[in-house]
């Protein structure tokens, strides 16, 4: 583990405390970009953290990025943070000149001129498309935008009539795996916040003359949510270190179950209060709904995970399981 990880996380937590409150989150629901947050992230070098040092970045590892994304997910931080971190990294590694401004990141087929449901597509300056043959970078102004929103009311726009820009080779499957594990950090952070808030709320809310945390049924529900959280946390951390397909697939699959449980249990514990727009829970649970199937769906990752093991013999299956976390050669 990187020795700077705690420092990165503390830096981002401080930035979040300084620049993000519920009003700022709600403002993004009217297609307003959280400019103060991103300016502070850029000023502190966070947006360049995955860019190699010799290309002017910090050269942090994926585990470091996952650690700060957990903090951002817990804070329900809006905006294209995964796209920014990964976009700058991909550009730098492909030897493309750095760009100024916001990047929207799409995974699409070769030659695609329509991009569906692209996060922050309509507010970005640059559109970076990862295709099976490589990267294509274009100016956002060259696309026609049809605005739309995701469950968290963040932009998921459809872009049409795009230009055909030159292709620069890149490791497409590694880019998808990286996007998936970065999104995993945000999902995990939102689940962690949701569990912690639900535990606190159960200790505050009184019914039948006592705190609802005193009821066994509430204790059992939240204990199961704690199970989900811890299981997906250890798997996400391990996947962020190993970066193998089976581990990342396993983390996203496990987080799919944990996110479902977090949404259901947290809202049930909160009762009617959690269903109000005013109470902070919905900003996390709606993001879990929006994020759960990003950079390949939970079901797609389950097929990928099983696909890594089917064909094993009964004797060969266990060695394959116990080696799943070993870093792939190269």
């Amino acid at each position, binding site marked *: 583990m990187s020795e700077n990880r705690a420092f990165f996380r503390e830096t981002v937590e401080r930035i979040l405390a300084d620049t993000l409150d519920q009003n700022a989150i709600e403002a993004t629901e009217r297609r307003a970009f959280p400019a103060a947050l991103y300016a502070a992230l850029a000023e502190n070098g966070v947006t360049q953290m995955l860019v190699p040092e010799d290309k002017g970045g910090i050269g942090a590892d994926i585990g470091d990025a996952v650690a700060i994304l957990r903090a951002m997910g817990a804070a329900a931080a809006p905006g294209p943070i995964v796209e920014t971190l990964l976009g700058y990294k991909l550009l730098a590694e492909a030897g493309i000149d750095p760009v100024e401004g916001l990047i929207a990141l799409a995974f699409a087929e070769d030659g695609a001129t329509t991009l569906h449901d692209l996060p922050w597509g309509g507010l970005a300056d640059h559109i970076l498309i990862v295709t099976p043959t490589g990267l294509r970078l274009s100016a956002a102004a060259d696309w026609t935008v049809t605005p739309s929103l995701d469950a968290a009311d963040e932009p998921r726009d459809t872009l049409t009539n795009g230009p055909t820009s030159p292709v620069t080779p890149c490791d497409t499957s590694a880019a998808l795996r990286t996007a998936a594990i970065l999104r995993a950090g945000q999902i995990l952070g939102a689940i962690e916040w949701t569990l912690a808030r639900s535990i606190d709320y159960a200790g505050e809310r009184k019914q039948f003359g006592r705190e609802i945390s005193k009821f066994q049924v509430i204790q059992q529900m939240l204990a*199961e949510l704690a199970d989900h959280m811890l299981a997906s946390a250890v798997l996400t951390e391990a996947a962020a270190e190993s970066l193998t397909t089976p581990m990342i697939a396993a983390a996203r*699959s496990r987080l799919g179950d944990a996110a479902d449980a977090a949404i259901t249990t947290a809202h049930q514990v909160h009762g009617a209060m959690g269903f109000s727009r005013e109470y902070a829970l919905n900003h996390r649970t709606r993001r879990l709904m929006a994020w759960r199937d990003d950079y390949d769906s939970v*079901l797609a990752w389950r*097929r990928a*995970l*099983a696909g890594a*093991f*089917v064909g094993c013999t009964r*004797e060969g299956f266990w060695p394959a399981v116990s080696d799943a976390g070993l870093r792939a050669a190269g």
Partner: protein
Amino acid sequence: MSATTLHLDLPELPEAAEQLRREVRAFVAEERAAGHLPPPEKIGLGFDVATTKRIAAKGWIGLTWPKQYGGGERTALERYVMNEELLAAALPVGAHWVADRQSGPVLLKFGSETQKAFYLPKIVAGDCYFCIGMSEPESGSDLASLKARAEKVEGGWRINGRKIWTTNAHRVHYMIALVRTSTVEGSRHAGLSQLIVDLTLPGVTISPIISMAGEHDFNEVLMEDVFVPDDALIGQEGNGWNQVSAELAYERSGPERWLSSFRLISELIDTLGPDARPSSLEELGRLLSHLLALRQLSMSVASMIQRGLSPNLEAAIVKDLGTKFEQEAVRVVRNIVSSEDLTANGRNARLRGLLAHAQVYAPAFTIRGGTNEILRGIIARGIGLR
């Protein structure tokens, strides 16, 4: 403790652990080649003295214990790796399992020098097996209500009471019984003690309890005026509850909590082959993600034990998740077998037999060693709810 402190560090497996993994795999291959593995349609910890003796000859019982008692002075992570390899291959390790996992560590932590010098080398040699005498007919989840008593007499203790669900009592040498030795006003947990009972002593009657899976693993152990000497007492008189609580992290977090039906999944994968339907891959992938999470959890808990911590909360989480996973595995395998039509017309008898056995065995997973509802009560306390 609260949700914000619920965190496990990622363990790094030392090279010594990977070296040991290779040695255990070589041993497993020899055992398989020699036909020593249990019948292919059975799940659960098999009990086989010859296997235990061969494992002991490798120096793999008491792997973490001090050398002065015959132990290997290796790390908890190495022990974890050895165990996952043995369990995944379904080696019948049941004879020494409780002594190695639980009874030995309790003696090391609380036992007298005499006890350690007497029992531990025998356990390490594969010659001395233990069972756990906790549950009683009227005391299951509410363990502190137990009624078995030991009364102080000249030179020792006289025990009367009844223990139940004692796995392997009919084929092991000793039981560590939790009994009441004194009454403390206002505390049910005080006044309990742990005593080592030689199961061949006069007054001990062991009767079989046949499980719904048709097997004889459980017993009822009746103790009528059983005399044990003073040095049968482990640790302090009256401190039994605390000592038992310390055991539970060992009992709850190990790979046996999620690997006891592993061969069912292996058999499915072998039978299924590479061309499965998308819906089967989705069910199987979900199951495998839970398996990989449990493996990370178990390794992390082993590394906490290594650092001298008592991860009782995390261990309860492993057992709650692990046992639910094992039941889920039966459901998933059954669904895939059905959807892919794998066992119709007498095909794949081995998978069919294993599934049939696992299905009737599965209700025990979430009960043995503490019901999941009790575990979740422990988890709830750990995260600050009670």
